[in-house]
């Protein structure tokens, strides 16, 4: 089925929760209000014309600093200065969080993309792990790395990091902690050149040769 036709069916079912349809990109997508995501997913899965029985991918996104104009890098990775001190940032992250759902139907052989956007202060989206069990781990990963709470999730623990880890690394304002459980987080992050270009030390005898 055509992407737009799928959206029209969905919008007819959801009403005001279906916010907008974005066409014209490489991958068209539908924007859904967070409250509408669960009814939307149940409808997409159960309606025989749509039959989306597989959730291909669920991605948590921090939209902070995304530059629509396409000027390039919006905000670099925060890390350590060359002296080893945490890089201070006076910029307060304010962008929204987002969750993107990529669906596929084995029976109808069509795909569909849903996006949800939620304010940074809220950072919570209803879970869809009841609709597709595979979402449970994807959501745990999104909670772990991006810090989006999935309300109603039965087992929302960290997936890849330790339980005692602080912060969510894929947030744009994440600064790596100076130490973790007493272990110093030595080593500057990849974004900073560990071998800054400095004047090479003169080797051997550093005294200038005596003039003849």
């Amino acid at each position, binding site marked *: 089925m055509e992407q737009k036709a799928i959206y029209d069916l969905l919008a007819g079912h959801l009403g005001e929760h279906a916010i907008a349809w974005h066409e014209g990109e490489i991958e068209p997508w539908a924007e859904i209000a967070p409250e509408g995501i669960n009814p939307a997913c149940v409808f997409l899965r159960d309606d025989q014309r749509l039959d989306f029985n597989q959730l291909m*991918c669920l991605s948590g*996104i921090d939209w902070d600093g*995304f530059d629509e104009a*396409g000027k*390039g890098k919006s905000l670099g990775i925060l890390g350590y200065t060359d002296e080893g001190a945490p890089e201070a940032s006076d910029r307060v992250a304010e962008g929204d969080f987002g969750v*993107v759902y990529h669906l596929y139907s084995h029976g109808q052989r069509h795909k569909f993309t849903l996006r949800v956007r939620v304010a940074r202060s809220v950072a919570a989206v209803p879970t869809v792990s009841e609709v597709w069990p*595979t979402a449970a781990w994807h959501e745990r990963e999104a909670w772990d790395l991006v810090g989006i709470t999935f309300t109603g999730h*039965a087992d929302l623990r960290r*997936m890849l990091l330790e339980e005692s880890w602080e912060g969510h690394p894929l947030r744009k304002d994440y600064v790596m902690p100076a130490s973790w459980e007493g272990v110093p987080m030595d080593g500057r992050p990849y974004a900073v050149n560990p071998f800054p270009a400095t004047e090479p030390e003169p080797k051997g005898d550093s005294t200038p040769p005596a003039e003849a």
Partner: protein
Amino acid sequence: MSTGELKKGGWADQDHVPGIKSELLELNMGPQHPATHGVLRLLLKTDGEIVYQVTPVLGYLHRCAEKIAEGVNYKQWVVYTDRFDYLAPMCCNHAYVTAVEKLMEVEVPRRAEHLRVVTAELSRIASHLIALATFGLDMGAWTPLLYCFREREEILNLLERISGGRMLYNYMVPGGVRYDVPNDGWVESVLEFITMLENKKIKDYNDLLTYNKIFIERTADVGVIDEATAKAYGCTGPVLRGSGVKFDCRRDDSYSIYDKFDFEIPVGMGEQGTVGDCWDRYIVRVREIEQSCRIIRQALESLPDGSVQAIDLIKPVKVPVGAAYSRTESAKGELGHYIISDGGQTAFRNKVRSPSFCNLQVVEKVGVGQMVSDLVALVGSLDIVLGEIDR
């Protein structure tokens, strides 16, 4: 977590001897365990020999490669994709460059596409050989391991000749591949190798392992994943096909030039037991090796002339603003990349949907109620690799 309303049949559920009840035992399987294929830790609750609950604990190999993707440019990140599925790095390279090219809308030279297909399929064969070997090893069969590693060694030699690396290649770049075919009869060597594999070696594996009575006893009717469970848990690749679903991204959601080739999609048919048991997942991999050989032969026989790189190899690429999810069939299943670009030289966000991550989740459901020794068979038949689970 499904501790479940399932009737386990173990002692903890029943009161065999009045007044005496057994207790659940917590057992750590891994992370240092020979049968978990890497640093996977399974936290088991067992009732005697019966598994009551399985909780996979991940992250021992976590490097946060997705954060690294926001700090290095598109070409530099190809190196990190090698480290995801380190048993089939060419497939991972292919998945990533396909995703970047989808956003860039760049035309890749035909010769490069053919070389990508050939190397990715060689990598897939190497990965499947490891899968057969280690699965046999888990089931107590030592000898096939040595046979499979011998053939894998040949593949590593072939890939070394074209890419310069034995294990990790960094061979593909957005816009093409790094090196053309070397002038030492590489094409003939590959054809010779796959002919040998098709005609002789696969028969060896079948004689040694596939139709071995002990092996069938250990794997048939064990760890059955039915079709509905496989789809709901997002299983892909040989796990999904083992459950009888004829789905392969190479044909059903074609990318690169796979639509030009003629090949079959083997599925599990329950020949030795139930559809979707461990033996079905195993046999799907054996038959996929044959199909990969067919693809390689067709790709090499129609190898066109021309350049192998459409974009300057040195300069970093810039990707226009946009977002796209692109999926490919890696050796383990559907490997997808969701890339969001803000027009710069690095990705704004690069989410990796790794097949092993999704396939492993199914043990939380299917592992319950099994014997501990059958859980080893189940995990072995899923053919996970921790590099891409933990990323």
